[in-house]
């Protein structure tokens, strides 16, 4: 610590507003500015630009790349009359429902619930492996599942003696649903196990004393305590699953668009086929869906913090 110097410090009137370091509004703004600049340029601006790009016929190459024309809402009309878009939207809904709502949420809860009633060592082992699936980089996990599901040498066929079933070709959507469940269950498990820890044991005890079965215990004692967590969890994992690009590494949206969820659809449309305007229009639809989910979530968060 430097020696006491004739400084700027105490001369200013000290008002107890929490500003203990004497930062002052101007300097606070200066501290804030670089972060805001970065966020505005690389997060906010792209989103706003999507609004405009979606109204043009911008293309990656060719004449429309140099002189994009304003085409109004044509892209949206095209999207809304395009079977591929609705196919993709439908697949995305099944994917999100199957792997987030059912898969991760239900499996995560079941694991958290079961782990409260097994030995500590068992619990530690199970949690370790569930977490591992979540932490390993996605390029590696997709390769692990590619190996698992391979037609001629895959471990799954060997285990189930299902001959030469080409899982990724015959069941692409089911494959990415199982894959995404495998990757993401850890979050729900962690969230629910901390939620379950907050259920007072005495209440469970008395429920058991009066002879309540597992289901009754869950419905009448546990669920009221964790309702908020269930909602938080569902919203967050829905948002993440809706936006994941990782299944691209497993099926690339194929075969025949059968696992072409929205993020992959946008990528292929805009950056493979070069239809940047059309891709932007669909991006905006995606951002709006995200906005709906996130608004509900933030409202809940605010209520719980208040």
């Amino acid at each position, binding site marked *: 610590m430097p020696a006491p110097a004739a400084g700027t410090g105490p001369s200013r009137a000290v008002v107890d507003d929490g500003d203990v370091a004497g930062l002052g509004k101007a300097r606070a703004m200066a501290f804030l500015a670089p972060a805001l600049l*970065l966020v505005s340029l690389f997060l906010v601006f792209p989103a706003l630009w999507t609004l405009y790009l979606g109204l043009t016929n911008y293309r990656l190459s060719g004449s429309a790349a140099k002189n994009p024309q304003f085409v109004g809402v044509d892209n949206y009309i095209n999207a809304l009359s395009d079977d591929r878009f609705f196919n993709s939207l439908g697949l995305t809904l099944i994917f999100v429902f199957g792997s987030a709502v059912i898969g991760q949420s239900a499996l995560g809860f079941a694991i958290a619930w079961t782990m409260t009633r097994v030995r500590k060592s068992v619990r530690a082992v199970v949690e370790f492996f569930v977490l591992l699936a979540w932490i390993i980089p996605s390029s590696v996990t997709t390769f*692990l599942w590619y190996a698992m599901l391979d037609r001629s040498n895959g471990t799954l066929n060997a285990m189930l003696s299902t001959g030469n079933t080409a899982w990724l070709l015959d069941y692409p959507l089911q494959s990415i649903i199982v894959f995404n469940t495998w990757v993401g269950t850890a979050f729900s498990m962690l969230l629910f196990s901390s939620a379950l820890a907050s259920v007072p044991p005495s209440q469970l005890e008395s429920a058991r004393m009066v002879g309540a079965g597992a289901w009754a215990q869950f419905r009448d004692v546990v669920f009221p305590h964790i309702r908020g967590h269930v909602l938080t969890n569902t919203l967050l994992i829905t948002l993440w699953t809706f936006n*994941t690009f990782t299944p691209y590494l497993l099926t690339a949206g194929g075969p025949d668009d059968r696992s072409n969820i929205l993020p992959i659809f946008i990528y292929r449309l805009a950056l493979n086929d070069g239809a940047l305007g059309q891709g932007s229009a669909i991006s905006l639809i*995606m951002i709006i869906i995200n906005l709906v989910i*996130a608004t509900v979530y933030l409202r809940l968060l605010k209520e719980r913090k208040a």
Partner: protein
Amino acid sequence: MTAVQGSTSTAGPESRQMLRHFLGLMGKSVFTALVLAFFVIPVLWLVFAPFDAHPGLNVKLPEFTFNNFKVLLDNPTAIASLGNSLILALGSMVVVLVLGSLASYSLSRVKIPGRDLLLYTLLLLSSIITGTAAMVPTFLLMVKLGLIDSQFGVILVLSGGILPTVIFILKDFMDSTPKSYEESARLYGAKPLRILWDVVIPLARPGLATIAVWAVVQVWGNFLVPYILLRSPSKSPAAVVMYTFYTEGGQPNLALISAFSLLFSIPVVAMYFFVNRRYGFRFHGGIKS
């Protein structure tokens, strides 16, 4: 843990309770076994194949060898890509830590008008404008800025995406650090930046460590952003380069891929468990997307 709690009244309810207990035990054992099988079996490949003299796609006990790691070390692209991942991860970490702590500190200590609104708007934006939803405009923006095929560009995009969450979490940490030290530092004439560096940062170290690890984990495994924004394989990170390892026959080069996958996974797994043990951040770690 439910111990045997069979009551010693009449035979009827007792045996029913025994049966129920037995079924419960069976149920949870079978379920635990299935869960373990589901989560362990795919990972076994990552444990065995890197040490197998003839790695295949199937899981099998290895004919032990370290040769696959030699193959890896002899492959300059593979080694360089791990270096690139490190550059992207550390670069983004530094950017978000510096900008994030400046921003969250000032937000924590000074009541700027509209502060709460700003925080929630930032958080909202970062959750709706995801890498996938904004890939087209981000790609075009980088083309216009001439930052395509630049690692610096990738760092900026990734940092911009995670910074709102960083600020949100760090502000919580800053709010909970005691303010009396800053007051005395100020009485001794220290300037705000000096106070931030010498007093606040050391106090907020657990929060900063959490954020640092979180940022590294986010960036280390990110595939989409570098995949879209980088062109030359020599600049691409491990997550992208991994999918280019094929043999001359067009088959995946399993010797290389297995050893590479292991080396690529170990740092994040180790960091995660280290920080988890040390600071117990089970929950903030939860924001991996």
